[in-house]
């Protein structure tokens, strides 16, 4: 589904390489986790895939179901089924959460040549999804993420994901800032979306999230490269041992 081959990325403004030959494939129905030290390039990878400005791809490729992601506008990537839950969700004062989501849902539908969702259908769906994430009506009415607590912002990301039903979901530290109960809700939200056709790339620092969202594969990203790939036990190893040995081993 998501195929990244030997991806090299540098900052547009500076001569600083961040991803240095990253290769990774996520198959449909599978959950891949990425762990790695601060600054190793995890968020950069997610941004480059989503199409954020400021990065220059100097080599390699990234495709979603064979389509070249790097050649698309961000909205085209979204319509193609890519979704990024941001590490730092953006506050947009003046744009209502509901308006935003309805605009997004219908824009994607239009882009795919599907019919737009009626407002009653939309309302019914969003109420249902919001309820399962313990997002109240007031939060839906408020401007996007504006004044939301850290945990509320993360739940709001998952709500968007649930509404947009992407086929490839990237979650960048969605667990950070969540209390134990919220983490369960979010994990349930993610697990509810798990199916044979959908792929997940879950970026996290902690084993705890992976207790709830069981990964099939765990990668360790260090200095712009995947240095180790394993099963769920790799996450446990990181949790107890830290990265030092793995990084040293990778460098060897």
């Amino acid at each position, binding site marked *: 589904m998501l195929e990244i081959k030997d991806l090299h990325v540098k900052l547009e403004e500076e001569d600083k390489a961040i991803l240095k030959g990253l290769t990774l494939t996520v198959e449909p129905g599978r959950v891949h986790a990425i762990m790695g030290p601060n600054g190793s390039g995890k968020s950069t990878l997610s941004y480059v895939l989503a*199409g954020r400005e400021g990065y220059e791809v100097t080599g390699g490729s990234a495709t979603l179901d064979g389509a070249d992601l790097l050649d698309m*506008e*961000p909205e085209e990537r979204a319509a193609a089924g890519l979704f990024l839950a941001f590490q730092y969700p*953006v506050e947009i004062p003046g*744009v209502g959460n509901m308006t935003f989501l309805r605009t997004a849902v219908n824009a994607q539908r239009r882009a795919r040549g599907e019919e737009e969702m009626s407002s009653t259908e939309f309302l019914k769906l969003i109420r249902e999804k919001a309820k399962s994430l313990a997002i109240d009506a007031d939060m839906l009415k408020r401007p996007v993420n504006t004044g939301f607590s850290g945990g509320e912002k993360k739940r709001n990301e998952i709500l968007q994901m649930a509404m947009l039903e992407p086929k490839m979901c990237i979650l960048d530290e969605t667990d950070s800032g969540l209390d134990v109960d919220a983490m369960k809700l979010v994990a349930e939200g993610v697990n509810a979306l798990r199916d044979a056709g959908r792929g997940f790339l879950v970026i996290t620092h902690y084993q705890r999230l992976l207790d709830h969202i069981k990964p099939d594969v765990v990668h360790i990203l260090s200095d712009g490269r995947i240095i180790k790939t394993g099963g769920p036990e790799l996450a446990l190893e990181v949790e107890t041992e830290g990265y030092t040995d793995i990084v040293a081993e990778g460098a060897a």
Partner: protein
Amino acid sequence: MATRTEQIAAARGAATAARLAGQGLPAGGAWITAARRAALGRVQALGLPDRRDEYWKYTDPTPLIAPEVPSAEAEAGDTLFAAHDAVKLVFVDGRFDSEASDDPALAGLEIDLLGDAATRDIHWAREVYGVLEARGQSPVPRTLAALNTAMARDGVLIRATGKADRPVSLIHRHTQPASDAVLHHCVKLEPGAEVTLLEQGPAGARVNTVLEVDVADGARFHHVRAQGPEQGRRIVTHVFARLGEGSVFKSFTATVNGRLTRNECVLELLGRDGVAHVAGAAVGGADVHQDDTVFITHAGEACESRQVYKKVLRGGARGVFQGKILVHREAQLTDGYQISQSLLLDEDSQFLAKPELEIYADDVKCSHGSTSGAIDPVALFYLRSRGVPEAEAQALLVLAFLAEALAEVEDDRLAEDLRDWFDARLSQERV
């Protein structure tokens, strides 16, 4: 060698004489003839504005003054406020069209057309017509308004003694490419009265309107107008208001496009506890020049004034805001607030702001601020990453920017109408 001041005076004299040449005052009854003569005297004594005047530093008044009307293609307007059950008064190229209008009596107010009232020898409007305008000639002359008082043949005169049954809606239509519309409206609110006045539609190729509002103690006046979307117009408007004790005055202007728009608002808070709010939202593209100039005088104690202006500019559009709060020594406990902000969608566009405070009282709360910014690229990316196409995402952010100004419109339904209008205009023109 003539000094610069002498040069300006000579140019002003020549331009004023050229504008007035061959233009007799319209015929009329005694009360209006007296008002027109006095106004003409003000124009002659003070002269029309010159582009070198400090007050016209950012906006060139020449096309507003030129003897020949700069022509503009007649464009149809949009229909707004359709659901508000207003009493509609229609003006075509600045002349009242009774056929197209509702019966003014339906508003439950005393309404006369200036054209009719002017034939009479005496009319209540003499207490307002040209009176507030004349007060507004100092400390800065606003002689385009005096010219209007002298020359206007049409407009509405509204007197309210209680709460109006329905809003009054002035609807303008433009049919002649060289129409020079001069409209003068007066609203006199007796104590405790309440009136809502709506305005919309292209009034002419060149337009000069004056609205004088006398708000007595405890009365409330609401004014919401939409200018645009016609691009060719050159318009100057003046709103003069005098506020009594505990009265409320709220005026909102939505502007879309226009070669030249200068909206002046001159308010005097004379009694205790008066409230004056003026606000505007403007959107303009190439060849648009949009100017809001506000002058609020606090003469009464414990009054509140508020100015909120937002402009979205692109393609080389130019936005101007000049806002002044003058607080007299006796106006203790004044609460004055002023904010003007622009959203520049490209580097060719420009926002010029001149906020001013002049305060002689010692116990006041006054603040002002002005900012210019661009679309937040992070917010834009966030929206696009959810599948919203760039233009649509930008329109959402533009509307979000305007939302704070639109929130100044007290009636939510009117605010919603204006929001939809901007939305439709933004998506049509992809500002």
